[in-house]
């Protein structure tokens, strides 16, 4: 059975705990970004674009066996890395769990600046959009 949302958060916190300096952290993040499969062009539609980003970011979501699955892509690799973590934490859980998830790992791994309203990387919008999907699908689940 898959890890719970919080288990995955703990895992990420542990992984990032191995790095002392920001450069190593970002290299790891970039690596995560590169490894994210991304989206095929058919899902890179206007409707899937997340607003408020300097780079374009797309989010695609669908239900499978009562679980919400997220797939996403971005032109910028750091954003992709951040997204890849969000997907690892949230994708494959029930809409109810996603809706009530508290994403404390972002702060703990020292990436909270990317969640600031003022960042034009759209991470905050991304989280909001994921929760919106969860809300929308929660009736169906």
């Amino acid at each position, binding site marked *: 059975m898959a890890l719970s949302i919080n288990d995955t958060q703990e895992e990420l916190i542990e992984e990032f705990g191995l790095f002392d300096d920001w450069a190593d952290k970002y290299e790891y993040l970039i690596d995560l970004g590169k490894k994210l499969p991304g989206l095929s062009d058919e899902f890179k539609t206007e409707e899937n674009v997340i607003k408020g980003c*300097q780079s374009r970011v797309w989010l695609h979501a669908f239900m499978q066996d009562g679980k919400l699955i997220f797939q996403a892509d971005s032109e910028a690799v750091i954003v992709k890395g951040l997204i890849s973590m969000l997907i690892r934490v949230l994708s494959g859980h029930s809409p109810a769990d996603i809706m009530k998830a508290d994403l404390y790992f972002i702060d703990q791994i020292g990436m909270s*600046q990317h969640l*600031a*309203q*003022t*960042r*034009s*990387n759209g991470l905050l919008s991304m989280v909001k959009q994921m929760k919106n999907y969860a809300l929308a699908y929660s009736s169906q689940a």
Partner: protein
Amino acid sequence: MASIEQIRLDFPVLDQQVNGSPLIYFDNAATTQKPQVVLDALNKYYSEDNANIHRGIHALAERATAAFELTRKKIQSFLHAESSDQIIFTSGTTASINLVAQTYGRANFEAGDKILVSNLEHHSNIVPWQMIALEKGAEVMVIPVLDSGVLDLDAYQKLLQENTVKLVAVNHVSNAIGTINPIQEMIALAHAHGAKILIDGAQSVAHMEMDVQRFDMDFFAFSAHKLFGPTGVGVLYGKRDLLESMPPYQGGGEMIKEVSFSGTTYNELPYKFEAGTPNIADVIAFSASFDYLNSLEKGWVEEQENALLSYATEQLSQIDGLKIIGTAPNKIAVVSFLIEGTHPQDIGVLLDKFGIAIRTGHHCAQPLMQRFDIPGTCRASFSFYNTKEEIDRLVACLKRVVTMLL
């Protein structure tokens, strides 16, 4: 709670001599003085964080953006607005009113429509309506004012009766004579007759609590410089559906979503109405005005100002030939007056020699002066940092000035 002496120390400008006498600043309706914390915030911004906002990803840009948006939140809570994206930054009350006239007005006014303004208005809440009315063939009609300086609500109701009024534009408080208008009632009446209403809060914000939702306001406008904040910042609050339905005002950076030569789409609220680099530093420093006001004991400002108003009214009335213009039962701490046989300008020039700053003239309310058939008034307008001793000196100097002039 700090003593008034301590509070005065928070306002560095007050501690100076003018023409050999200690400055007495009774021109608060024109602009208020700034507490040291506002100056400090300005200085801190420029010496630590200065950067252009919203699209930057470097540290300074992020700090500046966060601080800028924090002020928006503080204004939201000051006004008790639903949401911070209904708080639009402009360059002043005047700009806020023009924004509504040129967007809401341009999109909605038609020939034959009526726009109501009161006879108590500041030019900034008259001329923008005259301009758009002229362009659209609409008509600006006037809510008359009674001899006391109170609006004639019966006449207001009659004007609304035909249901051809599209918008009412009225100030919460008259800058020239201090009348507090019964806006709650006026808003309800406007809405009952299908009219929207804009409240010009330039003169009320420094003196009383505001609640745009409880009052059911459509639009509310004010200036930071009259609320202990910097010059060059204004605010427009609007109901969400109205703001969303309005076309943009100025075009430029920030207010767009996508620009191309084949077509441009506009950004969301509030940015849709905030074209160009905003007044970043002053918006950020304005935040400190709210911190300062919140540090004062609740209710104290109104209490102190009401005491000053009663005392000034009482003391000034004892001067021979002095007539107070505007005797509404509900007033903020503003006393406008004339002294028989003298011209306001002469009074103003001589009081300045005694270090006392009042305002003389028409106070940008010429239609009100015409209504009372006077060339202008002398206006002493108080803030919480003023004292009874200062009023005593005003009265003493006025007596001296009158003997010089008569």
